[in-house]
């Protein structure tokens, strides 16, 4: 009882603006006690493996921690690269680095910070904290999180390692062709393309996990308008990742095909266009900035109310602003291309859109300030970093508005002004909030507290060092210093601003070193912290001291936005196991699945426990990408087969298991099914979300086709380089489409027969579907093959072949999925009532048919009408 008293909202109880009205309790009130021995059973089920088996853990608290530490290690690596650059630029004409070394270092600095730090650390923190914030025991797909982490680690080490062999990519993090396609021999660009694609896939996996987690794994009663602001932001960001990364992956695929197989997508001599890459890159690259920035703002949105001692002002405004920012960020990419010679009307539109994004950002910042004004502020190092973040970020935002005005961008673009601007945005919008987050959440993770004294020292060193390092860059840029130069001439007046920047960078590094010491210093003699040390109001602070692996003793009913402040006796009831799932009778790991909007309980989800399969699958998947870099096709192929085998084993043993009982009493008199399929199942949602990302990548390729159409007077061209340009014709693509349509119908039939438990009809339609799908694949290939298309001839030939390649690979995956379903039924792991596998595969097939239809129409019919 005293616990609950202490952690109740320390303010008086008058209702405040933006707080939800008390609702009628829809669930039963907690009463009684948890069954005897339930705590021990629950602990046993969630026990973290020990010894070398520790690395088989898949629980979000372990994976999230590893992920965070790995991402932070890459941050330090990227930071050291930055210091190396600043040493080189300290004086004009320096020979500390050669041009090629510098170019590798700056390329890696940008790539590491963006792909190995900024995006992953925010996913990592979310994997670690999101389930806690929503009273869930784990994310819905623990093995997927683990797989994503191992992919990230392997890919990251591979990409960074290339620097030590002097073969790192050196075309900038933006990798503009034709420099990177025609002028960079060696494996550098391939390491970038394949290594980072591999990591991008891991990022998408985490995004799928987080979307399903935020939508389906909330505590009962926590409707969408009650979820912590952090979860809203993560939802927005994960959706952005889902739509922003696929265009880059498509671009990577095109560039790698050009490098490895000479398909001329970006070769202007053969009908390609280097600007296609710039569009694909920046359609990814601009949302990326907000993907990095919004989760950090999410941390601020958790920290500010805690230290202001009041709920966040303007919850609805913030959510609207976050969604608006995410939406607008996809319409701004062209402002990275203002100097490529675009027409004035395009420039005007994108100038306006770029400025519009400042409005939702302004709303969010003013909500934070308003919250501080309403509340009675308690100062802390966390809050200092929040304030530093705001002050810094606003400068970056204001210079951002300046460069969004196209005429000014003509001067500022690709100068050090932009280097200054982007670091103000990213350090202010990401690094400082993450520092605040570290000081704030450290006690939740370790049950110890970081030193407020060292934190203050670190804060001042970082704030001063940062501004001394980066403010002068605005000036050096306007005084004529272009970006990405490994040295500069003496006598242009650039010596002193550069020397100041270098000095500042070392002060900034000293601040980080103090922080690092604070984290690493031994704390065994330091007392454990008090539970909910900051008196926060959200569920992650239920975490016990010392922490227990079960996440939460029982999953509560949530009726408010700040339950620890606003729901009396909540903590005591949770601890007494008076809510849902206080026991693990079967010794299985269980969490609740609730409906997406109202969080009505829907299912008791069994989540898989520790396994090395996720790690092995990541190693083999990594092998495919790494061996391909060196063109060791055999090794890559073997690795691919092993990877497929491992993933199938993992699916076979870990997903859609037929439970020992169909329903289960989860407490408070509520009985929930243990197996569901279709839209009620998390697996179906994961498939849907993954396929939305997949189709986005495909649409990016189709965008390439129509982009070429806009830049060529006649497209497809009749004649090129003295020979006719051959297309796939109309007949075979149409035949392929008809076969794919028939296969899709057969899949629907198979799903139906399975549901009715007509085994014969099921296997029959399944085999039919497989044969039709294979024939569709052959027909897609046959058109180009029989007519003798040469993908290296012209960009048209190449883009048609890549659309066919994409479709055929998807048909191959579709066939594997159908075979898997057949095997599941044969093995008795799928039947009429337990049909999640075939239902999910049917969902894949809807997208498959869409893909096949678009491919057939674009390659077969469009040439007739263009």
């Amino acid at each position, binding site marked *: 009882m005293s616990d609950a008293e202490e952690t109740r909202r320390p303010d008086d109880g008058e209702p405040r*603006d*933006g707080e939800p009205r008390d609702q009628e309790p829809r669930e039963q009130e907690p009463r009684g006690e948890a069954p005897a021995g339930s705590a021990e059973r629950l602990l046993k089920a969630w026990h973290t493996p020990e010894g070398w088996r520790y690395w088989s853990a898949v629980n979000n608290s372990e994976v999230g921690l590893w992920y965070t530490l790995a991402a932070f290690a890459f941050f330090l690596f990227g930071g050291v690269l930055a210091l190396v650059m600043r040493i080189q630029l300290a004086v004009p004409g320096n020979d500390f680095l050669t*041009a*090629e070394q510098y*170019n590798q270092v700056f390329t890696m600095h940008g790539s590491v910070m963006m792909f190995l730090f900024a995006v992953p650390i925010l996913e990592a923190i979310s994997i670690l904290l999101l389930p806690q914030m929503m009273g869930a025991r784990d994310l819905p797909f623990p093995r997927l999180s683990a797989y994503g982490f191992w992919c990230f680690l392997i890919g990251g080490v591979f990409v960074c390692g290339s620097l030590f062999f002097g073969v790192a990519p050196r*075309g900038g993090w933006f990798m*503009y062709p*034709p*420099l990177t396609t025609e*002028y960079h021999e060696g494996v550098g660009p391939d390491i970038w393309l394949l290594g980072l694609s591999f990591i991008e896939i891991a990022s998408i996996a985490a995004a799928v996990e987080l979307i399903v987690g935020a939508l389906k794994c909330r505590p009962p009663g926590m409707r969408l308008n009650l979820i912590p602001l952090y979860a809203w932001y993560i939802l927005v960001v994960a959706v952005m990742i889902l739509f922003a990364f696929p265009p880059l992956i498509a671009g990577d695929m095109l560039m790698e095909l050009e490098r490895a197989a000479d398909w001329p997508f970006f070769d*202007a001599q053969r009908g390609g266009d*280097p600007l296609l890459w710039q569009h694909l890159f920046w359609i990814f690259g601009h949302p990326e900035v907000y993907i990095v920035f919004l989760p950090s703002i999410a941390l601020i949105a958790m920290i500010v109310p805690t230290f202001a001692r009041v709920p966040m002002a303007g919850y609805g*405004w913030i959510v609207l602003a976050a969604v608006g920012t995410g939406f607008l960020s996809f319409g701004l990419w062209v402002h990275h291309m203002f*100097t*490529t*010679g675009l027409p*004035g009307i395009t420039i*005007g539109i994108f*100038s306006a859109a770029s*400025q519009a994004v400042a*409005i939702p950002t*302004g*709303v*969010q910042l003013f*909500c*934070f*300030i*308003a*919250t*501080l004004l*309403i*509340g*009675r502020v308690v100062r802390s190092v966390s809050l200092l970093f929040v*304030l530093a973040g*705001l002050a810094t970020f606003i*400068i970056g935002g*204001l210079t951002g*508005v*300046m460069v969004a*005005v196209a*005429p*000014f961008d*003509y*001067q500022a*673009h*690709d*100068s050090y002004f932009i280097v200054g601007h982007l670091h103000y945005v990213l350090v202010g919008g990401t690094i400082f909030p993450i520092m605040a987050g570290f000081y704030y959440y450290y006690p939740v993770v370790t049950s110890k507290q970081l030193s407020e004294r060292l934190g203050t020292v670190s804060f001042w060193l970082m704030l001063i060092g940062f501004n001394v390092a980066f403010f002068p860059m605005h000036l050096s840029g*306007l*005084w*004529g210093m*272009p*970006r*990405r*130069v*490994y*040295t500069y001439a*003496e*006598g*242009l*007046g650039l010596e002193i601003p550069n020397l100041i920047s270098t000095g500042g960078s070392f002060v900034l590094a000293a601040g980080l070193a103090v922080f690092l010491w604070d984290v690493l210093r031994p704390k065994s003699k330091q007392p454990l912290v008090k539970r909910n040390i900051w008196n926060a109001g959200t569920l992650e602070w239920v975490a016990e001291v010392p922490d227990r692996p079960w996440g939460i003793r029982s999953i509560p009913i949530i009726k408010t936005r700040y339950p620890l402040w606003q729901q009396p006796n909540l903590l005591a009831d949770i601890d007494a196991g008076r809510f849902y799932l206080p026991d693990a009778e079967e010794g299985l790991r269980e969490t609740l699945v609730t409906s997406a909007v109202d969080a009505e309980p829907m299912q008791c989800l069994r989540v898989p426990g520790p396994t090395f399969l996720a790690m092995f699958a990541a190693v083999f998947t990594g092998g495919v990408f790494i061996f391909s870099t060196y063109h060791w096709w055999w090794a890559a192929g073997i690795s691919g087969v092993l990877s497929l085998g491992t993933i199938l084993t993992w699916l076979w043993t870990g997903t859609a298991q037929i439970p020992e009982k169909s329903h289960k009493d989860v407490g408070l008199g509520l009985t929930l099914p243990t197996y569901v399929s279709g839209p009620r199942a998390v697996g179906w949602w994961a498939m849907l979300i993954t396929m939305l990302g997949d189709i986005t990548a495909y649409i990016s390729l189709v965008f390439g086709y129509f982009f070429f159409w806009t830049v060529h007077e006649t497209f497809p061209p009749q004649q090129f380089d003295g020979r006719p340009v051959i297309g796939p014709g109309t007949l075979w693509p149409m035949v392929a489409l008809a076969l794919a349509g028939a296969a899709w119908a057969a899949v629907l039939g198979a799903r139906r027969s399975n549901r009715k438990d007509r085994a014969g009809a099921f296997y029959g339609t399944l085999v039919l579907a497989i044969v039709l799908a294979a024939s569709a694949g052959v027909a897609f290939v046959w058109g180009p093959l029989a007519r003798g298309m040469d993908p290296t001839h012209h960009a048209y030939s190449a883009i048609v072949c890549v659309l066919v390649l994409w479709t055929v690979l998807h048909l191959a995956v579709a066939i594997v999925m159908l075979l898997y379903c057949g095997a599941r039924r044969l093995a008795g792991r799928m039947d009429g009532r337990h049909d999640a596998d075939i239902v999910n595969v049917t969902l894949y097939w809807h997208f498959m048919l869409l893909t096949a239809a678009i491919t057939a129409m674009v390659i077969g019919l469009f040439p007739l009408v263009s």
Partner: protein
Amino acid sequence: MNLNPFGMNSLPSQSALETAGSGAAQIAQLFYVMVAGAVVIWAVVIGLAVYALWRPGRHDPRSTRLLVIGGGAVMPTVVLTGLLFYGLSFLPELQRPAPEGSQVIDVSGARFWWRVAYRLPDGRSVEAANEIHLPAGEAVEFKLTSEDVIHSFWIPSLGGKVDMIPSRENRLKLHPQVPGRYRGVCAEFCGASHAHMAFDVVVHPRERFDRVLAELAQPATPPEDPQTRAGQAAFLSLGCGACHQIRGTQAAGRLGPDLTHFGSRLSIGAGELRNTPENLRHWITRTHDIKPGVEMPAFENLEADELEALVAYLEHLR
């Protein structure tokens, strides 16, 4: 106006704030207006945040709601709309092509130098490299492209930059006002020696510009003494002519910069070294130490007298 307090610049200006052309001047004006606005906005917002942390007592939620709507949504919308109209009002003039009859100059970027061709009224053009002469007080139209990767053409003191993209022709109008020397650079990362890809710009009064252009149109001065004759022979026998053109001789290479009036240029190696005999010797023998990744082979093992003759010949091409 030299706005860089660290001035004492020994090189010509490369600053977007030391303006010598209409475009640069307009953009600088836009910049100062925006900086003033930004400083005010930053001070107000941060002042408010600091006040929120340090003031005693609490505030009424209703007034803070007004703050969120007014400060977060209404204010930015009004300010940004104003800025958009003001900022984009510069665009038509910056984008408008130079009037008919203006000097047209073709410039193409190549790793890591600049091919320059002045179009003459009679349809011919005069080729040069790494140095651009412009008439003061007149608009000049540039036609920009690239021979290999993407470069970007930027003369900060005269105006904004435009990318040079293979197989595309971009255009840029500049309107220099103040006669003098300026420096241009490549602004798009183009490889190893991106940092060494600069050029000289000289703005002349109109009559002088006409004279300079007429001189540039002339073929090279023939060698006059034994040393320059030996130098020309060396130039041809070493195979320099395979890449470099010297109009009026057999050297007609197109891969590297035209050297017809090399001796009159301000710098060597695309803005890299001042054009002195000493620096030229250095350039010919240690090319890659000065400019890594450049296509020209270094002639490390030239006999001293051959090198002297070559340098004398090239410097004599005025």
